[in-house]
């Protein structure tokens, strides 16, 4: 009888519920990477996560560790309090660009500025996915969305916000990296960055954020392959991937 060898298995930190995200959406991959890292760091039992308001509000269906919801944009605040109450636990929040860069801007900046020892995973899909693809602060110049039918006009809506570059000068911020998920090498890099952010918390380094450029094929009206191509050619042109800050 041939001996079975496990090459790959579903991370323990994922439930048996299949992802319900759209075809080609970056949330599924980001969720899975986080679950894999939590398994690798052997910390499923000490994780407390905060889900955003946005498509990923359903993260708690897929992650098998403690998760709370938070009001739209307030995830880092809820995470702050949980971490202060349980400094020995691992606390992260997971937020979209509408959540983190628009309605939650003040929360993001003050949490970062206080240097809270939490990890933030920031999913930038350049629009409001859950509500049907409206313009976000991160929508590219000229990007057509349901509320910018003629393309984002900087005279009316300003320029896309680069959150990591905005947070970078704050002294409480220790680690900022932007990643994408468009091919295997970039997924490997993304995983490395998220893992570093998580280890930073475990070693009490302080506030870390990883921005994930993430495809939203359904709202971008592009098939997943073209969506990834658009990230490679246009989105990462404006939001350059790589380390923005590392004083760990």
């Amino acid at each position, binding site marked *: 009888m041939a001996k079975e060898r496990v090459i790959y298995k579903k991370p323990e930190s994922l*439930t048996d519920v299949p992802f319900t995200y759209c075809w080609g959406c970056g949330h599924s991959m980001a969720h899975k990477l986080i679950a894999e890292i939590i398994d690798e760091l052997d910390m*499923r*039992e*000490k*994780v*407390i996560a*905060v889900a955003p308001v946005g498509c990923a*509000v359903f993260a*708690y269906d897929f*992650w*098998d*560790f*403690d*998760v*709370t*919801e*938070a*009001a739209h944009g*307030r995830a880092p*605040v*809820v*995470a*702050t*309090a*949980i971490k*202060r*109450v*349980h400094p020995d*636990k691992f606390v992260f929040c997971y937020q979209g660009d509408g959540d983190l860069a628009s309605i939650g801007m*003040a*929360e993001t900046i*003050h949490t970062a500025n206080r240097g809270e020892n939490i990890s933030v995973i920031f999913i930038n899909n350049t629009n409001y996915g859950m509500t049907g693809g409206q313009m976000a602060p991160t929508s590219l110049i000229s990007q057509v969305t349901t509320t910018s039918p003629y393309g984002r006009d900087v005279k009316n809506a300003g320029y896309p916000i680069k959150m990591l570059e905005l947070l970078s000068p704050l002294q409480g911020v220790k680690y900022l990296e932007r990643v994408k998920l468009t091919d295997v090498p970039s997924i490997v890099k993304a995983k490395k960055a998220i893992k570093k952010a998580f280890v930073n918390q475990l070693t009490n380094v302080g506030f870390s954020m990883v921005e994930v450029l993430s495809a939203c094929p359904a709202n971008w009206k592009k098939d997943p392959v073209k969506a990834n191509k658009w990230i490679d050619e246009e989105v990462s042109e404006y939001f350059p991937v790589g380390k923005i800050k590392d004083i760990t």
Partner: protein
Amino acid sequence: MSEKELIKGNYAVVEAAIDAGCRFYAGYPITPQNEIPEYMSHMMPEAGGTFIQAESELISINLVFGAAAAGARAMTTSSSPGISLMQEGLSYMAGCELPAVIVNVMRGGPGLGNIQPSQADYFQAVKPGHGDYHMITLAPHNLNEMYDYTFGAFDLADRYRNPVIILADGLLGQLMENIELDRTKKPELLNAPKPWALTGARGRHGQRILSLLMQPGVLEKHNFKLKEKWDLITKNEQKFELTNMDSNPDYLIVAFGTVARVAKGTIQKASADGIKVGLFRPITLWPYPSEALKEAAKNVKKVFVFEMSLGQMVEDVKLALGDASKIEFYGRPGGGVPAAGELYEFIKKRVK
């Protein structure tokens, strides 16, 4: 053993919270409650808890949400405009069934208003934000009660897994009074287990705190489950105080908080003139002690409702009595505080 202490109302809130085992406080400056975050910034670290000066009331209430989700006894305090900013968070907490204590030291409104005492946030406390929910609302009328009600609010919040509001006002916050503190009293539920709290999924599957229930019918069921809780609270927690009811009064004053305190002077003035007036003081504004009020008003000729607003609680008085014909309302909005004689003048003109 009790000790006497000359203390400001806002400080009494802090003492009570610390004594009740509150170990997480977040607050943002706003007059007339600034002494609370100020004193808390000394007391909380000393007690080994967490003090955070929030950068807005949105941050205050969501910090309290997180601390409650993590199982801590948590509190925030503010005054009227700040409480407005907390409404979304309070609705989330009620939906997620998270306990916490929120103190509103009310000031004049609407808008930025002023920093004089007011009771115009009655609606905001007892008929709050979005969705079907309630918050137990306690109205102190002296500084002993600022301490006692705040102390007791933490057990109430834990018992029902629901936010509890202390509805005070600028006068109660700023006043100094001798109060009697029973420092031997222990909070009942401080060490009661909170199996729903998020503490890491040790030896179990992950658990959730959420109010989002998207499947058809599930949210409706959740609301009915919450209603059972509101019904239970309504049955168990109504509190009120009667004054001068033994005299078989011909007239009844209904007032809460500072106005009830003033009305006690009014009753004395009236009785010196041979007019018998009683006082019904609701202590819980939600649940409103409607049956008790109906009973107290049964044999009186008139019911005088006095508030520091244009008339908010008076709506609940009408609902309780089911008949508005006996009710006379007098209110001072925008920071006006009535004097005992002023209320007596109002009564005298309407008494044969």
